[in-house]
């Protein structure tokens, strides 16, 4: 890779676009094969930047060996990542943020997923990726931790599920069909 591209993509250059101080800039779930399983952006990135970030980061993180530390310095930011089975969970934070705290947010999220799906696996997240989004939204807002109790999150999510079910039943009921027809 030539000098300039290194310069533009390398660790030393911060993208100028997001001069935002949210704690977590984005959340990324990537499989070992480099397939994206979930993305959530708290700082404004355009579509183009999003794909570039994903490409770059999965290159960096997937190539790291085991038993190294969970932090990668990237473009002046830090990416905290952790591998669970075949999935890498990554969160990008500022260089001065508390890395271990974010590492445990990742684990917290995984534990909630695990509790919801019952020993979660990659397939759960593929076929229910919308559920993964619901849960993440109950955990993080604006890149900050919203709820640190697993129980509370679980309660809210099951309440949401019930509401969706209720709406479905209602839609299936005869009175609703009649109402629609008239």
């Amino acid at each position, binding site marked *: 890779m030539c000098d300039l591209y290194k310069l533009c993509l390398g660790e030393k250059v911060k993208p100028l676009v997001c001069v935002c101080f949210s704690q977590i800039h984005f959340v990324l779930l990537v499989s070992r094969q480099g397939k994206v399983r979930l993305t959530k952006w708290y700082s404004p990135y355009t579509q183009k930047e999003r794909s570039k970030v994903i490409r770059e980061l999965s290159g960096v993180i997937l190539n790291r060996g085991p038993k190294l530390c969970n932090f990668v310095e990237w473009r002046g930011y830090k990416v905290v990542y952790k591998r669970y089975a075949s999935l890498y969970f990554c969160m990008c934070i500022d260089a001065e943020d508390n890395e271990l705290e974010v590492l445990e947010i990742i684990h917290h999220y995984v534990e909630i997923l695990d509790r919801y799906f019952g020993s979660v696996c990659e397939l759960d997240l593929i076929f229910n990726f919308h559920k993964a*989004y619901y849960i993440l939204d109950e955990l993080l807002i604006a890149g900050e931790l919203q*709820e640190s109790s697993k129980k509370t999150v679980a309660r809210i999510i099951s309440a949401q599920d019930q509401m969706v079910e209720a709406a479905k039943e209602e839609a299936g009921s005869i009175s609703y069909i009649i109402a629609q027809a008239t």
Partner: protein
Amino acid sequence: MEQYRAIHIPVTLKGPGNYITWSRMARKALGGRGLWEHVLTPYKKKKYVWKMLYIHMLGYDVDFGHMEAVSLISAPKYPEKQVGYIVTSCLLNENHDFLKLAINTVRNDIIGRNETFQCLALTLVGNIGGRDFAESLAPDVQKLLISSSCRPLVRKKAALCLLRLFRKNPDAINVDGWADRMTQLLDERDLGVLTSSTSLLVALVSNNHEAYSSCLPKCVKILERLARNQDVPQEYTYYGIPSPWLQVKAMRALQYFPTIEDPSTRKSLFEVLQRILMGTDVVKNVNKNNASHAVLFEALSLVIHLDAEKEMMSQCVALLGKFISVREPNIRYLGLENMTRMLMVTDVQDVIKKHQSQIITSLKDPDISIRRRALDLLYGMCDVSNAKDIVEELLQYLSTAEFSMREELSLKAAILAEKFAPDLSWYVDVILQLIDKAGDFVSDDIWFRVVQFVTNNEDLQPYAASKAREYLDKIAIHETMVKVSAYILGEYGHLLARQPGCSASELFSILHEKLPTVSTPTIPILLSTYAKLLMHTQPRDPELEKKVWAVFKKYESCIDVEIQQRAVEYFELSKKGAAFMDVLAEMPKFPERQSSLIKKAEVVEDTADQSAIKLRAQQQPSNALVLADPQPVSGAPPPLKIPSEPQSVARTISQPNGTSSNIDPQAPSPDLLSDLLGPLAIEAPPGVVSTEQHGPTGTGGVPDEVDGSAIVPVGEQTNNVEVIGNIAERFHALCLKDSGVLYEDPYIQIGIKAEWRGHHGRLVLFLGNKSTNPLTSVQALILPPAHLKLELSPVPDTIPPRAQVQSPLEVMNIRPSRDVAVLDFSYKLGTIVVGAKLRIPAVLNKFLQPLQLTSEEFFPQWRALSGPPLKLQEVVRGVRPLALPEMANLFNSFRVTICPGLDPNPNNLVASTTFYSETTGAMLCLARIETDPADRTQLRMTVGSGDPTLTFELKEFIKEQLIAIPMGSRALVPAAAAASPPPVAQPPSPAALADDPGAMLAGLL
């Protein structure tokens, strides 16, 4: 290629429709042709919107259906609304126009009575709300947060939502009214709401800690409550630790307050901190370990910030010392990182030095993250006592380090070596080793500096010369090494004359061996060295003279004016005997000035401030340094000596291209010297200004009127800074090369670095603030011509003192054209407003790729192009006379490759190249130049390609190049300033002379 790919989309709601074919058709049908109208049932809408999100997640460009996702937000039923909210917040970012459409619906949901809808709306605003939202929603969100009737579920979301709105627009929260409310919020019992509120507090105090000082005791209370595990429900303990996140946040908020005045608060806080520092043990469970250490490291930062009694500080150092030697990589990493932070705040160097060997071991860690931290720490802890060890370690590490680290590493080693060198010969050793091991990563600054040292220290000269001679024996040496050793041997080679293998002719032959391997900027240095060697050979050595003269003769007609001028002048001078001795006498000492490298380092270090967070922000002095300079802004390159009796020799020099050089007899030589240094050194002595009266020297004068016409500085009345160098010359130079300085004045330097691939280009603008004050209202706007698509990343509004920002610029060539993009650039320094319109060197030849054809390839193509408009012929008159090889060089320099031997007539040139643009794709271009040996000012040229516009534009372009070649004397200045080879003994005002016939005449005499 993505046209007919089937993607499996795992939204298994029901039915067989789980595959959609990702094709232009589908995109068109859904996006452009209104297929959405047929998606009637809410269920299907939901399904398709989810599918869109999935496709988006996989990285495909989903530019349709945004409207549908947004419109689902206003659906009456929960399931649709939920999908609408979530998909919108994932697909769009805050700058998207569609979001504005949703503001009203979102607001209605927020102020409505339905709790679940409130939650959805708050989540969306919290995740992607922008300024528009901040303006219209902040009061409603505040109401929700403090309302007693709302459940915690809503309030915690409202807190974070408000945090986002505050970040987008700090005026969204009125400080006066809010401070009390914030204090009350911290009394909250529900830990979910409290966590969110503390996050909000961190943002608020980071902006204005005074207004929220009443929150300080509350934070300490929260910490006490958690540390004592009082009133913490079971579900909020994480692996037995009471909400580690809340603890971290509370301590983070405390770090924004400069001190804690109240003694009792301070006491209870220190008790808590003490408990955390003492009570954290390494345990087996990874998560518990991480969580407790997250709290511990935050406590450490807080202790460092509050600069507590020395007792606690030493405790911290002891802890960190333990951490950097543990096996767990995360802890080791953080140990190193925090030690570096600690170094910046307090005087703990001596304690940290005890761990030096451990830190050096970490430099060999398999993990690059840890190695980086170790490097930073070593850099920070280095002083006179351990410099030798540390620098030697760094040098050793340099040969195994990965490329991404070498630049930083070599710069750091060079700075440390200079700052703490116990003796100067060691310094020379280090720098030479550095160049030897990592030549590619050693910036010019570094070798300029070592030359300065050697020149200024006589006792060092023989040593440096013999070292340089040693390195030349190596088989393959880096070009920078050639430069340094050539320079040093030229100056001080004669000091070695008695040693075997060091006679002038031997030095010449070993240096001359390197010449074929070096690039153009190095050749002038070698030429100067030859001249100096020749001068030092007393009595004259006819054999050496013959060899050197042959070299000068060879370069007399070189296309590069710098080389040409040196060759001609040295050749003439070397016949002059005594005058020759005089002109080429040893360099005078450089004025003592601080190293530019160290200066850069100090600027970063000086600004230490009270807040630990601010300190943290300055943690990367190293990064800043490396970022700092692609083109040396400062740092004096070693110029050759200016003759002390100028008239006698200078008058005899005349140049073949008609312009002549002269030296202003009034100019005292020290001033001349500083004038030469002027463009390259910010800290040039005050003499510079006074010498500018000699006229527009190109180094400090006004821009050349002739070529500058396209570049009119805007706002003449306000624009009272002097532009350094000639903008037009700089532009022309950049048209032929890919990096250099585009614009410079006393406050700012704009450098450019470009990379071209096919019809794409990537430029980076380097905006360097040279002054010690920030530049404000910085604006850069691209005015693109129709044929280029340009995308400039936003430039920050302010450039801090002595800092450099980079702004990438993406270029795409749509069709051939000679129009030029213009950068409209302006900034403010205090009350001065400066603006300039600068041409961007994204010109036609940048989209050419050299291509060499054989006659079998060339002629069929040439014949296939039958005539106009694909093949155009023109007789061009008024061409600058050039010998054929020079013309060939010129063509090659703008990437049109000359194919030698194809044309039977030796006076003709045949050339080929490939042009890239979006409309033409890669397009072969052919050209033939027929010259007239009797009259070099005219020629006939034929240009052909598969595209009529391209043919025409290329023909015109070549014509421009042949006619508008910058004249020798004028090109000298940018060549010296931009490519920064040490400038030759250079007449001060060639441009002035060119305008002044009297002076010209005097020169010719």
